[in-house]
């Protein structure tokens, strides 16, 4: 069985669509800015579905009016980490909401080996299952 059919990780919004172009990303950023969200860029080389906290690339960007600023930051991140996963996140600071409103992957490594299913036998015939990234075996910065 293939656990990662198109050999690409699907997390967050738009992840079943073809890669967004910069123009499409700009449109999404503008939409978020119109709603008053603060954008931030994050990257990681451990895209395990339970890894919620990716590394921040610079500070979240509050008080922006135009997408060009966010896009410039994203391009900076792509140049620094060409073989990492990169995502854009929009933080909604409305009182009572105060959480991420949008999140989508905008950069990924060339080869994505995906995850394997790990089985562990416990207490007789019981099984415990988990997933583990193939690339995660290697040390940080050598994964992709």
């Amino acid at each position, binding site marked *: 069985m293939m656990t990662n059919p198109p050999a690409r990780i699907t997390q967050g919004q738009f992840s079943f669509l073809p890669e967004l172009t910069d123009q499409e990303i700009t449109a999404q950023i503008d939409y978020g800015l119109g709603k008053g969200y603060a954008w931030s860029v994050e990257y990681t080389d451990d895209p395990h579905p339970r890894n919620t906290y990716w590394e921040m690339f*610079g500070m979240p960007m509050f008080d922006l009016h*135009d997408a*060009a*600023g966010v896009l410039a930051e994203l391009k900076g991140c792509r140049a620094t980490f060409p073989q990492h996963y990169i995502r854009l996140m929009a933080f909604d600071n409305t009182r009572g909401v105060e959480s991420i409103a949008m999140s989508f992957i905008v950069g990924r490594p060339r080869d994505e080996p995906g995850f394997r299913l790990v089985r562990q036998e416990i207490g007789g015939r019981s099984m415990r299952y988990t997933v583990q990234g193939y690339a995660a075996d290697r040390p940080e910065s050598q994964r992709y």
Partner: protein
Amino acid sequence: MAASVADVLAASQVEAVLDELERELIGLAPVKQRIRDIAALLVIDKLRREFDLQAQMPSLHMSFTGNPGTGKTTVAMRMAQILHRLDYVRKGHLVAVTRDDLVGQYIGHTAPKTKEVLKKAMGGVLFIDEAYYLYRPENERDYGQEAIEILLQVMENQRDDLVVILAGYGDRMETFFRSNPGLSSRIAHHLAFPDYRPDELLSIGDRMLADMHYRFDAEARDAFADYLARRIAQPHFANARSVRNALDRMRLRQASRLFAQRGHTLTRDDLTTIVAADIRASRVFADAAA
């Protein structure tokens, strides 16, 4: 297909802004002329683009030089509006900063700080007031130079994303540009704001009063003209800003005058009129008498 200048003007409503500029800003003839030229170029470029002619976005970074109170900030605010109507900038907001907002306090602090401000200004106009403070030749370890370099880079590479306006007093800006030739050559429009003539200052005063719902009576207007003539000759005269301050002080005197008339029933006229005595009580006249 819009083929006439009038069509583009009608579509962009830029004429309304230009008229407003003409009506609401007194004097400043050379500045208004340059703004009209820029607007004309952008309109013609728009028409050229419809015929698939080459219409490269012109570089619109500007420097505003002039004495205090000559309307640099006010015009910058209008500039953002005009450029937005003409589709040169996408959002049309103005971000006004000074040295403190750009330059950091320790090594490694300046670049993120400057970049953050630039990101906020994208899609609009970045107005750097008293720009010459960015460069401090007397301290070679000053971080201002770093901010200037980042600024230059963005001004050159992201020309369609933001317009930078540097403002400051004439002589000091000149020294600043002379020591930063790269900056000077990247700024296409050097606008010099002239000082106001006394009659222009008087109409500015009239307008400010009208905005605050006050008015001069006939005698007071003469007294104010007299006041201006004396005040201009004194040091630290700051054009429209001095006019505003003088008017504020006159309002104070008018208020105390009315306050002293306990029993008097005050009419609308009483409350809105500034009389000659409110003006003649000024220190400017006292000095002349002594």
